[in-house]
């Protein structure tokens, strides 16, 4: 029996095993052009280290939450890994470990919610990306309606839901329950906060409308 036959092959694993990167060891460097809106720090926990070991890998430009970055990326590197592990956007989670099955890695790219674990970073050169941190920094009304409607329990999936909901409101300022259910149908929450997202999104929509 093959050694790893008990586990299905994720996209990440496929890319990795395809040998697209010699050695598979180094982390690409990153050059933050402006650092505003980047990853967080804590009293106990240092921020993600920015290593500069890689050479020869292509560089891409990203605009994340309004901050410009120029980043070296490996050909098989997912956008998720790039944003989370190099740039420190830790709101981007990985519940399903790269299968694109859970929505916890959702970010908004050029206005569309995308699964960053299934998106190659190298394909994102020049893209504008918004993460949950950026939505919070922009004081989007969804932040408060999510808190007040208890759209989280353990909270691990919540940033992914937030990004999907924000993208929904960007394209549909007055979503009905069916619209919200359809939009959020691909985001998984094991604590099952699902129902609470309906009033949260609709209340944020009203706030946005009143503010116009």
């Amino acid at each position, binding site marked *: *029996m093959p050694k*790893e*036959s*008990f*586990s*299905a092959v*994720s996209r990440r694993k496929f890319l*990795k095993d395809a040998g697209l990167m010699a*050695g*598979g*060891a180094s982390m690409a460097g990153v050059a933050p052009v402006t650092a505003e809106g980047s990853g967080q720090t*804590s009293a*106990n*926990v*240092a*921020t*993600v*280290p920015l290593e500069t070991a890689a050479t020869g890998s292509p560089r891409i430009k990203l605009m994340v939450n309004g901050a410009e970055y120029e980043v070296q990326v490996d050909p098989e590197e997912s956008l998720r890994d790039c944003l989370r592990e190099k740039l420190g956007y*830790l*709101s*981007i*989670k*990985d*519940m*399903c470990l790269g*299968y694109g*099955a*859970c929505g*916890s890695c959702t970010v908004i790219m050029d206005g569309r919610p995308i699964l960053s674990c299934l998106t190659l970073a190298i394909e994102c050169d020049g893209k504008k990306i918004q993460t*949950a*941190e950026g*939505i*919070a920094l922009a004081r989007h009304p*969804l*932040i408060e309606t*999510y*808190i*007040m*409607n*208890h759209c*989280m*329990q*353990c*909270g*691990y999936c*919540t*940033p992914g839901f*937030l990004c999907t909901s924000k993208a929904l409101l960007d394209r549909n300022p007055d979503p009905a329950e069916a619209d919200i*259910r359809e939009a*959020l*149908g691909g*985001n*998984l929450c*094991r*604590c*099952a*906060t*699902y*129902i609470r*997202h309906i009033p949260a999104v609709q209340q944020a929509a009203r706030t946005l409308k009143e503010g116009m």
Partner: protein
Amino acid sequence: MPVYTTLSSYTAIGKTGVRRKDGYEKVSGTGLYTRDVYLPGMLYAKMYLSPYPHARIKSLDTKAVEAYPGVKSVFRYDDGWFKDARWRNFELWVFSHQIEQLLAQEANWAGEPAGFVVCADTPRICDEALKLAKIEWEILPFELDPEKAVAPNAVILQPHVNAGTNVRHSGSQLFEGYEVHGDVEKGFAESDKIVEFRWTEDETTVAGVEALSCVAVFRGEYLEVWAHNQIPMRTTNILKQYFGNHLHIHVHALYQGAQFGHENWIVYFTWFPIMACIFAQRTKKPVKFLYDQSYFHAGGYEHGAHNLKVGFKKDGTILAVQDRSVRAGAEVHGKLWEGTSIPHLFGTTQIPYINRPAAINYRHGMRSCGLWNNVFFRVAAETGLDPHVVAMKNDGCRGHSISWVDENVKKPKGFPMVNSLEAVFKAGKDAFGWDEKYHAPGARVLPNGKLHGVSMVHSIAWSPDPNNYFRTNQMGINIQRQTPLVRILARHADGGWNHESTICRVVADEIGVKYEDVEFRPFDDTGLDSGAGEGSGGLVRTLPMAIDAARKIRALVLAQCTTPAKSGTEPKVVDVPAQFPGLKPEDLDIKEGIIFEKARPENRKTLQQVADYHWQNYQPFIAFSGSQMHLEEVYDMGRQATWIEVEVDPETGEIEIKTVVNSNDVGKCIDPEGVNGQQYGGTYMGLSHGRQDAKVYDPATGIVLNDNLVDYKWFSFNDITGPMHQCIIESGLGYAPYGAIGIGESLGAVAATVLAGAVYNATGKWITDFPITPDKVLKAMGKI
């Protein structure tokens, strides 16, 4: 006097529209989870996982692993570190079917960490290096089915432990769980009718959300650990055993990505930190230990099979229940005894070794509620009585009727003389529209061709016996000069049910300050462990401490406000005049952070001003509590019920869930949004277990075929399409402060088997093999 504490009025407690303390961090993604911990120079460690369900390593060659660029250390099962054999074994309670070892030579399930662990510069290097080991395995026979494992001619799976049977030992005895009350044969003899049937449930898994990890770093005599578990105090104690009592160990428990109880994870939250610390010690670097597959391999409900015999009267009175079960986990019969008047009960549970990962329970057991539900479903169906009638007829505690409980428990102990089940039914039955929707089995075909079915299950709303809780519970409260005004000092692991906000509400009301002025950061290793974390015991064990500390500090504030004193030490002794001279503590009150004279409310000062004054005069306001409830006997008197409406497609066997109503007696509702969140979550999780959650094993290889979120489907948003209605009942019948009763665990377990009754009502066929998948529906209906 009631057995529990009360307040004359509640402000933050029970109020809706209260902002979650953890809300911003969680929604913005700025809250940290263990997987989010990155330290400068950090290394990573990953384990080799057995490809076989039962095999022993004959030889292991890790030279190529050690030589791989970027690999820093390799730890093998035969490492000299195991100089004491006891260090290897972590028997997972007496409940478990499984022997768990710290890095085993013999693997007992496919995917079990075994053989060796590699530590390297990056996770990717770990993955590559793990492939390079040369392992010669001795393949051993395996068994996945607990019933086959206890059959007479079963292959003995652990001959070095049990020579003649697979039933596991507890000490020197074969372990079989028993719950025996009354005389079950007498009960059957007095019954009008006896039914015998069987129900089974398949193994499920948490299947999410944050895969396990642990970060460790040695800083001289200090060892700092970030552990993904719900009991950081236990991790501290374990690490002291292994690394020496001289070490100063600090364990941080950050936000937890959905664990649903700690018991499943005991092995992993003990030996994970140990392994992380071994590598941190050897490499002198911070090490993050990763177990990516943990969310399928660790945790879940166990496989179980029950053979039931139930005797009852024509009026629905249940006289005797006999259950002979074989499970890969715990004994199951206690709840049926705790919450009914059934006088005769005989339950046995055999727990054999099998070749599946350890599974005990998360969000408490579907097992016990499954047993309960199946008994009540059948009696209602066999007698033709409305399920509510059967439920009321058999309501009670420990074989006693509710009228006995009224006279012998509620009245002498000062509980309200209310009937919880009656109140629960009154609210929920009407909200559901039961009388209009209930019909004879298989009697209603909808215009769309689907079969309409409804069902109801009830159960006890339980809080565990506080005497069973052994962990230290400590909490401090500090009133500060600066923001936040009130800071709660205690560490606990966040479980997601908004425990921090609940404690803050209680402390705010008890002291007399605004909720917004109270802060509880769960991660801080303050040296105090609140013991909170587990939803099952959180209220019962944590609230008394919080209340005690709050009342102490309130008394301290009022005493110091009214008593002149000398403070400080020579030569800096200062006179501290009273802030409210000439008054006694009982002359003052505190509301919304203002201390005032009751008779002259205009005589007032803010608590912040007073705290600042006393801080400057060496009299800081700080109080501690280590109290714990000690109750001789606990009766579970609160009840809950769930109603469900389904449509069953007779062509595909698909079950669509249309309407759900929950009615839950929480005793005293402290956090309404938290209660509703638990009800929504429990409903989705429970129904997911009932309809589709199951690990699928290849019988030929013993390997799990759906160990990823693509193939393992748990309920998403639109798996419940219709309305969900929540009813909250406040009877005051709980033993926790204010009469509160736990809610976090029970609903998920109760709802798990409600589908059986609904499918019977829709089709007229019993399906009690969970989950009830479409193929089972079609088979029961004779379609396949």
